[in-house]
């Protein structure tokens, strides 16, 4: 009887403790995000810091984004052609490739690749800066890490991902063109004119850009918070990096579903 009471008591204690930790984590996360947002305007004035982060997050992600865009476009047009040719509609392959890329694959695949390439690097960098006391050292030098470390990286992600998405989509369309027109013999005029008439600037292109901005916001918040909250040990940093990729990837897919429902349903 006493044993059962003890078990119930310890269950209540652990549940209570987990609940308190959950709320505390949520509060810490919210305060952190608000802190980063409030430091963002001043980070705009530090062009040197912003340019460096744009180079690290944006320019260094270019190879993977451009290569992936080209291959995704090539595969899309190849698969699309094989289906459309049965209905004598192979000229529509340009429209199909462009719409798939602009509405969905461009923002989503670019965001997934970016989370793996730049998001994980951000978390690891900040986590290691914490474990080597570099962030504490900045605070002791009276330099606010929110302004010096977090806000420039937040802005760099917010600016680079939409631009990388546009490049991914452009390269995808180019890949589609090379396969459809150059290899499979689709009429070049029909390829471009059908695409031009069916892809809408506002409904398709703008919605795609809005999606990529939303994904950038999500990845930036997850990557920075995981770095900020990483336990300063090698195991802690590796765990935080993994969480960034997993949470950001699942978050992007879930958010994409919600945004697609709102935009295209």
């Amino acid at each position, binding site marked *: 009887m006493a044993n059962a009471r003890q078990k119930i008591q310890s269950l209540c204690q652990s549940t209570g403790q987990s609940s308190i930790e959950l709320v505390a984590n949520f509060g810490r996360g919210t305060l952190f995000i608000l802190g980063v947002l409030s430091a963002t305007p001043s980070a705009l004035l530090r062009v040197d810091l912003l340019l460096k982060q744009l180079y690290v997050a944006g320019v260094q992600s270019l190879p993977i984004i451009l290569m992936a865009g080209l291959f995704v476009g090539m595969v899309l047009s190849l698969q699309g052609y094989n289906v459309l040719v049965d209905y004598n509609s192979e000229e529509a392959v340009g429209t199909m490739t462009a719409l798939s890329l602009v509405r969905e694959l461009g923002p989503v695949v670019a965001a997934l690749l970016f989370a793996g390439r730049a998001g994980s690097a951000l978390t690891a960098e900040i986590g290691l800066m914490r474990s080597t006391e*570099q962030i*504490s*050292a900045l605070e002791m030098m009276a330099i606010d890490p929110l302004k010096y470390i977090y806000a420039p990286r937040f802005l760099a992600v917010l600016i680079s991902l939409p631009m990388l998405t546009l490049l991914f989509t452009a390269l995808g369309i180019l890949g589609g063109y090379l396969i459809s027109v150059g290899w499979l013999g689709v009429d070049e005029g029909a390829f471009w004119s059908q695409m031009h008439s069916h892809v809408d600037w506002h409904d398709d292109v703008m919605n795609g850009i809005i999606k990529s901005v939303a994904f950038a916001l999500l990845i930036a918040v997850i990557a920075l918070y995981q770095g900020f909250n990483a336990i300063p040990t090698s195991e802690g940093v590796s765990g935080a990096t993994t969480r960034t990729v997993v949470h950001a990837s699942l978050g992007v897919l879930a958010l994409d579903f919600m945004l697609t429902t709102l935009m295209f349903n």
Partner: protein
Amino acid sequence: MGVNTEKPLIEIKNLTFSRGNRKIFDDITLSIPKGKITAIMGPSGSGKTTLLKLIAGQLTPDSGEIYVLGENVHTVSRKRIYQLRRKMGMLFQSGALLTDLTVFDNVAFPLREHTKLPESVISALVLMKLQAVGLRGAKALMPAELSGGMARRVALARGIALDPEMIFYDEPFVGQDPITMGVLVELIQKLNDSLGLTSVVVSHDVDEVLSIADYVCVISEGKLIAEGTKDQILQESTGYVNQFVNGLADGPVPFHFPSDSYKEDLAKLSGMTVNDSKGSV
């Protein structure tokens, strides 16, 4: 405190701080006199580094107050605490140099961030600080190319770049060879005297610390157990302070981790063996 009649630079009053269920500090009160080298000593894990972070306002106590230059660091605004930190320098155990900057840029970093001095003046100041720690010749090296001792000296040059009023040393001698230790001991003493600094050294390297400290505080299990001048501490012939200062294996801190009696443990073990052998037969 008896060492200096001037108002202390740092005053800690009834400080209590916990991490989870573990009480790191339990109602500690102490003062750090101006212009002196104060050593805070204690065994590993006694919260010495935590104390420095509390003084710098990087951590918040559960209760109690910490006054730096007469201001309570935990009630002032965020802006004010950053202003106060400009008057503090800190030498971290790892050096904590920014890994993407050269030695020169690391030392120039606080000057570039906090002043609008022309680059030529900053260069002169940086060379002066590097000369003081004997590493002017290493200005172009990256932190990864430095030994542990050199990294600490660069960090020290960076710590004094803004000419602070006080400097905190977090375990400056840990893991250093005898020559580097000697260099660091001399540097701490020289900088304190020539720059008129107030130095706080947290360490458990008894000989090195006692050779330069004007005043010593010993912390153990969350309490301030002894304080006084170097001689007063050395004269403590009994108890924990004696064990700590003289590095004795047994004393108030027992050699054995608390456990059941050794005989009982052995008896249990042989009982299990007998049962096992019976079972197997």
